């Protein structure tokens, strides 16, 4: 016992000018995190968490370093090591872990996690569910979840409500296909790509005209009319496909701007 005490005191005197002490490591870790060297920061916080296994701030920072250095799977696996009981994770590390899950796009696991967690209030859970639904492009589910919110004056809730209202104005890919089937190119014009629409119309009409001319001149037994006709048909079908695609792209971009809005709101609130 006495020997042990001696060793103990020696080990501390040695640690006096040490640059690997807990305090110094913590300063260095903070510096690494702030200066954007996230991978190095994750190594530093791993050590710090090992040295002080009950510090929630350090654990939050460790998860953050993993998320910002894009080592999402490592971070997700780390949680079980950090907290034995997933339902009792305190608020800030739990929020950080939720972000990690969302960045990893594991929506269902994310929902399971925060719905079972005891540190989040019921409104927090609603807001997190709506956030993940918006990011996952599931606006129907987002609306039903959002109606369960209890505090109508919640800042983030008000923002999300306006986003959900804006989502209705979308264009129909089916209509675009129909329009393009009747007059080539109009489906693309419908989805705001009128330049591509004109080019499609020009290509299809040109080929149809050439085909018609050659059939008139040489009859249906000559290959020329068929070749032009075939290429024209290809452009016609391609244009229908393209109209659907361009309408979907239009919707996607619209939703993407809404998602960016939601992300900005989320970041200022949490």
């Amino acid at each position: 016992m006495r020997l042990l005490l001696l060793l103990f005191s020696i080990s501390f005197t040695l640690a006096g000018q040490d640059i690997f002490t807990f305090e110094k490591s913590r300063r260095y870790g903070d510096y690494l995190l702030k200066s954007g060297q996230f991978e190095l920061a994750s190594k530093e916080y791993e050590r710090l968490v090992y040295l002080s296994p009950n510090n929630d701030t350090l654990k939050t920072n460790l998860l953050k370093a993993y998320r910002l250095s894009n080592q999402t799977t490592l971070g997700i696996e780390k949680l079980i090591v950090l907290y034995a009981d997933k339902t009792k994770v305190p608020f800030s590390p739990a929020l950080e872990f939720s972000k990690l899950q969302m960045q990893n796009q594991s929506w269902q696991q994310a929902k399971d996690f925060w719905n079972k967690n005891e540190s989040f209030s019921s409104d927090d859970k609603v807001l997190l569910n709506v956030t993940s639904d918006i990011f996952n492009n599931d606006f129907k589910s987002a609306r039903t979840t959002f109606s369960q919110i209890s505090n109508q004056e919640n800042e983030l809730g008000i923002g999300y409500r306006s986003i959900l209202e804006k989502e209705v104005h979308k264009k129909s890919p089916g209509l675009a296909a129909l329009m393009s089937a009747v007059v080539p190119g109009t489906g693309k014009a419908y989805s705001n790509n009128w330049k591509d629409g004109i080019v499609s119309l020009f290509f299809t009409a040109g080929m149809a005209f050439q085909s018609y001319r050659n059939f008139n001149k040489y009859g249906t037994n000559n290959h020329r009319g068929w070749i032009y006709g075939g290429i024209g048909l290809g452009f016609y079908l391609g244009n229908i496909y393209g109209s659907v695609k361009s309408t979907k792209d239009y919707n996607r971009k619209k939703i993407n701007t809404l998602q960016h809005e939601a992300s900005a709101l989320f970041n200022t609130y949490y």
Partner: protein
Amino acid sequence: MKQVLFLILITNSLTSFGQSLEQTFDFANQLYIQKSYQNAVEAYKRVVYFDSSSLYSNQIYPKIADCLFSLEKYQESADYYDLAYFSTEDSLLKDTYILKKISCFLILQEYDYAEIELLNLGSDLPDSLEYEKNFNEAILRFAKEEYDLSEQIFKKLTSDTLAINELFNQNTKVSRISPKKAKIMSMFMPGLGQIYVGDIKNGLNSFILSAGLFALGLRSAYINNPLDAAISVLPWFQRYYQGGFKKAELIAIAKIQEKRYKIYNQLLDEVEKGETLK
């Protein structure tokens, strides 16, 4: 009680390897000697952060730069040589770091930056640095197409000046190939320019394609009518005719580069031979 003491002891002893600033620095140096460069960089960076009175920075910056150079991160390496340059007062060391920076820029093919650094070098260098300076400058002049100057400096690097002479004679022949001439030749007859620079395959390809389209157009104009030929064949002919002579120019430029690359590497072979003899 005993268990807690044990635990603290263990954590202390775990971290006590390479602990103080000095020990960490020594540890990093050891990693550097073992060529474990990535780990060495991490350790050095830690020392720099805690080294509040800048005791080690003039030793560490060049070390980090060396590590990054070995890790083939040349841009970052050049940045650290810059820091090293400003951390020392010794003019000899300053010149060494500048030379290293020039190497980085040459490997990155940033010839202009390399030239600027060359102007920063001191005037009277010791022999070993003088040799390195000449080596870098010879390469730089060659890359910047200042061949006469390059030849003079290459001759200082090796005793076998005859071989250098011969290689630079070959190089003058390469300079005679003119991309513009190839382009104009291909304008008159598709494929001629390509054959002139020695690319027979592409020359024939271009000739057959353009001539074929030309014949097809004539035939169409004769059988159907000129308007039909103009609509269906002329755009294609124009595209491949124009493509042909523009490609002739590009092929000529690539040929010149290829030949220069070969001569340049033979020059390096000569330098290498000279070095082994020394």
